[in-house]
């Protein structure tokens, strides 16, 4: 059964952008535009995750969030807000959000965060290995092989590759990589992440006919068997 997502957003074009994207990814999506509607929907029906705006008519997003947490609703919630500063992020997380994404955002970043959230909350047994084509990562022994050949990776390179493998076939932005691997949120210079990626690419793809690590121009990176 597909995941059910509630999108709470009062700006119609932003709501459509998110809703359309999520439906394309195979999620079932409900959208509401006001705080009271959001509170009503979220308590009356089951959702696997909620994407919540902060500036809402009727009742603001943080109040909706606090009300839900106060009512013992632990549905995973990602706040999506134009209040994008790091300090506002702290406020959002303190109020009980599971993640916080500032507007303007790239859709691939929302996908990544939603993926991570659903995986964490999914209750699935933790994966012990990841793979893409002939590339394999053993999460227990921290060994990476391609075509049976061991690839030596530094700790950060291992973490980058883990993120790429977990979101195989999807685009990961540079900002998202910086956040997932270094746990820092700021606007990295394009060239900064690129230097890490070119090293990783050298280790992964050199000597193989088919390259797995693709640069998506202007956006980020994608690990995939298909170019």
């Amino acid at each position, binding site marked *: 059964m597909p995941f059910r997502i509630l999108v709470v957003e009062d700006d119609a074009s932003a709501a459509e952008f998110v809703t359309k994207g999520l439906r394309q990814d195979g999620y079932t999506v409900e959208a509401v535009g006001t705080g009271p509607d959001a509170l009503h929907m979220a308590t009356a029906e089951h959702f696997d995750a909620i994407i919540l705006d902060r500036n809402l008519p009727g009742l603001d997003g943080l109040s909706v969030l606090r009300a839900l947490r106060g009512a013992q609703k632990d549905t995973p919630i990602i706040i999506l807000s134009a209040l994008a500063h*790091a*300090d506002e992020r702290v406020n959002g997380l303190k109020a009980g959000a599971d993640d916080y994404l500032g507007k303007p955002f790239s859709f691939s970043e929302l996908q990544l965060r939603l993926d991570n959230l659903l995986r964490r909350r999914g209750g699935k047994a933790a994966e012990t290995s990841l793979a893409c084509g002939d590339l394999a990562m053993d999460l227990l022994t921290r060994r990476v092989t391609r075509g049976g050949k061991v690839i030596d990776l530094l700790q950060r390179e291992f973490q980058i590759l883990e993120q790429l493998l977990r979101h195989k076939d999807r685009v990961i932005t540079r900002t998202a990589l910086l956040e997932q691997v270094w746990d820092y949120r*700021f606007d990295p*210079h394009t060239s900064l992440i690129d230097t890490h990626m070119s090293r990783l690419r050298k280790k992964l793809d050199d000597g193989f006919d088919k390259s797995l690590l693709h640069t998506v121009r202007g956006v980020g990176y994608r690990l995939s068997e298909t170019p």
Partner: protein
Amino acid sequence: MIAHARPGWLGRWGAAIIAGMCAIVLVACAVALWLVDNEGQRRISDQEREAVSLELDLLAQIQDEEGDQALVRSVERHAQLDGSHAIYALRDASGKLLAGDLTTWPAGLLPDGGWTAVKAEGFDIDGVARRLENGLELMVGRDRSALEQFQGRVIDSVWLAIALVAITCLLAGAAVTSYILAKVRSLSGVAERVSAGDFSARAQHAGDNDPFGQIAKAQNLMLDRIEDLVTGLRTVTDSLAHDLRTPLARMRRHIEDGLVADGGEAKQAALEAALADADRTIGTFTALIDIARADGGLSREAMSEVDLEALVMDVQSLFLPMAEDRGQTLTVAAAPAVITGHKPLLMQAVSNLVHNAIKYAPEGGRVGITLSADGATVEIAVSDNGPGISADQREQALQRFHRLSPGDGGDGLGLGLAIVEACARLHRGRLLLEDNAPGLRARLVLGTS
């Protein structure tokens, strides 16, 4: 802007205060004087009466010892010597006056009848009469008008004294009030100039000892802060207008190009370029907000314990590939240091310093990060062996949006060092740019609490 008329020398307010004070003082003086007058009158008449009865005793004794003739002479002498203040009258049993100031015995005055006020021959007498031996009767009295005249003179001089004191008080009051008003007017004048838009207006103050000096000093500190914030806001607004317009205009052009382009590849390239411009605009915007929030002290709420040693190691791991690509070494010498700080801003600040160092150090050069603590402060220093910044350009380098060389396009947003400086201010520290001989040494000094 508050419109108001220029007040006169003291202003209506000052004059009213002085007039009120004078009225209160005058009423108090009048009451005091009335009390003194009453009390004085009572005491004086008590004394007079005592003197009169002593005189009667004395004259009675003279009659006893020396006979009636001696008494008559004594009374005559007393009456002559004492002038008009004391009034004497002596009569025999037949009622004939033997000696004294009067020609007839005052009507209504009875011997041994106690003190009696009588009028006789133009005198206003307060007198007492005693029956002596041989049927003689003696009256001794005091002329009240003389007493009242004396009292009048005393009261007049007291009023004169009060008038002198009052005039002195008036002048002193006027002086103090005009001093206070001048000080208040100078303070409010500064506030008015500021509200009219002149943020450089400052109050004059000589020292901290005078209370007005303390107010002026506090007001000036507040105005310094306001000026900083307003200047910051203006710079941000100007910068927004200037530095966001450029990428927005370029983005617009790229989108237009994309719309009219033939073929997927050209459209793709235009889209990518527009996206890069959008990211750049967002980056500039975020940086400006970071600076504004840090300068406004808003980021203080988000402070927590930050392990700086781990932070500089993270920065090293982040930038090592970039440095190595340029054949540079990136070394870290860090002592353990944990402070209460704003982690994202600190990370960004150190990253900016390291990124600059890598950019300006030559191929094969050296970039070093050191972290040291000395109790009250923690210092993160980033040094390179590049061309450095000449002493006269260092101040400029810290200004928002300043680019050292006009040709330095790339992704140098010109905000890098301004963010570091805002970060330093937020942590009650400072950013120092020094000569590394050769190269630049940027020292980010942070307060530990």
